[in-house]
């Protein structure tokens, strides 16, 4: 940005000071406070700071996979020589976005060319996307999926989709029309966004028939087309995501620009042969599960929209690491601890499927909190198919503020908990006791429970806290 106003600089400096103070005073990571402070001083800060990202901004939104997708895309972009400005885990509302900008390194006059290579990779809360997108004017807008999530906070699923369509229509008719949409072809509520976008669209999807589930899961949300008829599925991959078509109006899963032709999800990671830009590349991912393959496809499609070569994308992904709390592993006393965040039915179903693939014996620490960021209504655990874990006869420890609700849910599913302990650290100790040396403990927390259990795991394994770690 050529002309930086005094007010803008003051806002940025005040924000940075607030973030430093918050961390010094141990008020958590101080990830949102800088944004709150800076936005007070300069209300148009988002527009001004976004304009300073000369390589443009990529927004990543959707119910599940935002953090992982943004994290993988950041790794690809860095590998391709870009200077990435990314928000940290969960800081995906306006104040978090401003805080990201405020705390990012401003290129000095001596660093020629750096400004031109600055790319924003921002995960954006699905409800906040319409208002933030109009201000960020993204170069690429990624839409991952739309599932039921925290109905007490977001309202109904339909209203989130309506917000996206309205936001896209506003962008399409204005200065944002140069953007490329990256859409999940397999999720009908996402794929149909193309109808609100007369400009460039890249669709991604999975074309391997072996990943199909026998039937839509209970937690499937998009059952009806915009025309009112029911969708039919030639294959269901996740919840309502798959090879869909409308039985009446002829709307159907669009052609895939980026497609996973063969997917292997056995083992700790996943592999996929992916068609992109007229070539085929083999992707080796450090993440397990079909949902991780979807996230990787979204990152590949976004990178492709930015002009990154397929071979470079594959190289970057081979060296990528899991994002914060999303399949991160920790080594503790000779035991491997893997953290699998699950915050809604679709996410928990995918985690269940990943645990099924890993097979017995299963040692499981499940944590349910009911904070605002988790959803105060814990009903959703009944929409997930935890019954599928019963055949594995897991050794189960239930924890978190609503450990008793979780224990009841598992007991009804035929999985008797071995221990119910609300305190996270004590529950972790009990779960570790039940895990033999050399074996693996799977930890499945909701969002705020993940922050808590990860803090303990990081401390005990000597890893740095999240706000000191690498961005995103």
């Amino acid at each position, binding site marked *: 940005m050529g002309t930086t106003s005094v007010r803008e600089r003051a806002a940025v400096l005040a924000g940075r000071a607030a973030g430093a103070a918050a961390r010094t005073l141990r008020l958590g990571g101080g990830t949102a406070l800088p944004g709150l402070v800076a936005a007070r001083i300069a209300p148009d800060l988002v527009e001004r700071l976004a304009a300073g990202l000369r390589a443009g901004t990529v927004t990543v939104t959707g119910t599940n996979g935002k953090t992982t997708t943004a994290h993988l895309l950041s790794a690809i972009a860095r590998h391709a020589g870009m200077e990435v400005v990314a928000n940290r885990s969960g800081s995906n509302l306006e104040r978090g976005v401003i805080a990201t900008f405020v705390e990012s390194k401003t290129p000095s006059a001596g660093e020629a060319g750096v400004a031109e290579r600055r790319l924003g990779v921002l995960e954006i809360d699905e409800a906040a996307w319409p208002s933030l997108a109009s201000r960020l004017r993204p170069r690429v807008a990624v839409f991952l999926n739309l599932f039921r999530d925290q109905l007490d906070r977001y309202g109904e699923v*339909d209203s989130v989709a309506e917000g996206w369509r309205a936001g896209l229509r506003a962008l399409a008719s204005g200065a944002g029309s140069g953007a490329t949409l990256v859409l999940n072809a397999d999720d009908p509520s996402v794929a149909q966004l193309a109808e609100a976008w007369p400009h460039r669209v890249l669709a991604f999807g999975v074309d391997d028939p072996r990943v199909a589930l026998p039937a839509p899961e209970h937690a499937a949300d998009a059952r009806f087309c915009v025309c009112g008829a029911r969708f039919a599925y030639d294959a269901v991959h996740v919840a309502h995501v798959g090879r869909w078509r409308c039985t009446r109006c002829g709307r159907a899963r669009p052609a895939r620009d980026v497609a996973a032709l063969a997917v292997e999800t056995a083992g700790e990671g996943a592999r996929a042969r992916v068609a992109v830009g007229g070539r085929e590349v083999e992707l080796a991912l450090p993440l397990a599960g079909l949902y991780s393959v979807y996230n990787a496809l979204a990152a590949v499609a976004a990178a492709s929209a930015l002009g990154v070569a397929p071979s470079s994308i594959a190289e970057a992904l081979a060296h990528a690491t899991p994002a914060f709390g999303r399949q991160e592993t920790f080594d503790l006393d000779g035991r491997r601890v893997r953290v699998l965040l699950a915050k809604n039915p679709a996410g928990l179903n995918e985690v269940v499927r990943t645990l099924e693939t890993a097979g017995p014996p299963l040692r499981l620490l499940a944590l349910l909190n009911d904070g605002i960021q988790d959803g*105060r209504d814990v009903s959703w655990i009944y929409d997930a198919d935890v019954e599928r874990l019963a055949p594995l006869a897991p050794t189960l420890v239930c924890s978190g503020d609503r450990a008793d609700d979780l224990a009841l849910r598992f007991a009804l599913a035929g999985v008797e908990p071995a221990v119910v302990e609300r305190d996270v650290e004590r529950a972790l100790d009990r779960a570790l006791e039940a895990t033999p040396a050399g074996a693996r403990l799977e930890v499945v927390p909701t969002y705020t429970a993940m922050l808590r259990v990860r803090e303990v795991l990081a401390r005990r394994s000597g890893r740095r806290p999240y706000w000191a770690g690498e961005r995103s």
Partner: protein
Amino acid sequence: MTMRGGAGGLAGGALRVVSLYGDVMNVYADRGNVIAVGARARERGVAVEVQRVGIGDPLPEDADLVLIGGGQDREQRRIAEDLAARGPALQRWVDDGVAMLAVCGGFQLFGRWYRDTSGVELPGAGVFDVTTVAPGPGWPRCIGDVLATSTLADVGEVVGFENHGGRTYLGPSARPFARVTFGHGNNGEDGTEGALRRRAVGTYLHGSLLPKNVALLDHLLAGALSHRDGREVSLPALPAPYAARAHAAAAEVARRRAPAFARDARPAS
């Protein structure tokens, strides 16, 4: 799911449970109620057959227990006409002593009518003498933890989570299912929660409701067995330790953070 065994459980054949629109009215996890009925019946040695009835599907000839959950506005509009057409059959059933549980959107549509924001009235099934009005713009949804005391003596304290825009009012022949201590209840004005008619219970409470309100679960099961056997059936006490602890935890949360009932569900002035 068909289960057998246990003394007296098969006196009249399997308990016939009808789950209405389970694939559409499913967004607030009311599936937990179906799961809890199956598990509790199994514990009590009662065989259960669940029949899922969707849009356009015929109702079975008879049933002992009918369950319906909540859905999104769009889904409620989708089923409203189909459900209203079943009104006479459902009313016959309820008068014949069939047990029912209608939650949230299902409760609204089991009433006489639902008037949306544009003033259009959707007809209901008429099981409960209640009417529901979608409030005008500016009125907040009623969202949060609920602690209530049931008017059913054998049910007592009830815990759950409500999330509804519509305000429901009891007609002259309806009696409330519960009185709200914490939360909003039917309309945020009169302190009532839900409605009753014979063995049918309407309520706004999710949670899922039946897993952690075992007294209500047993009340409905006893009602369903009474209908099946044609005589008043009372169930022996049977402990439910996980449910009791989850109930206590939810009650503690409601006391801590839900607003005490104070006619607060009004627009900000």
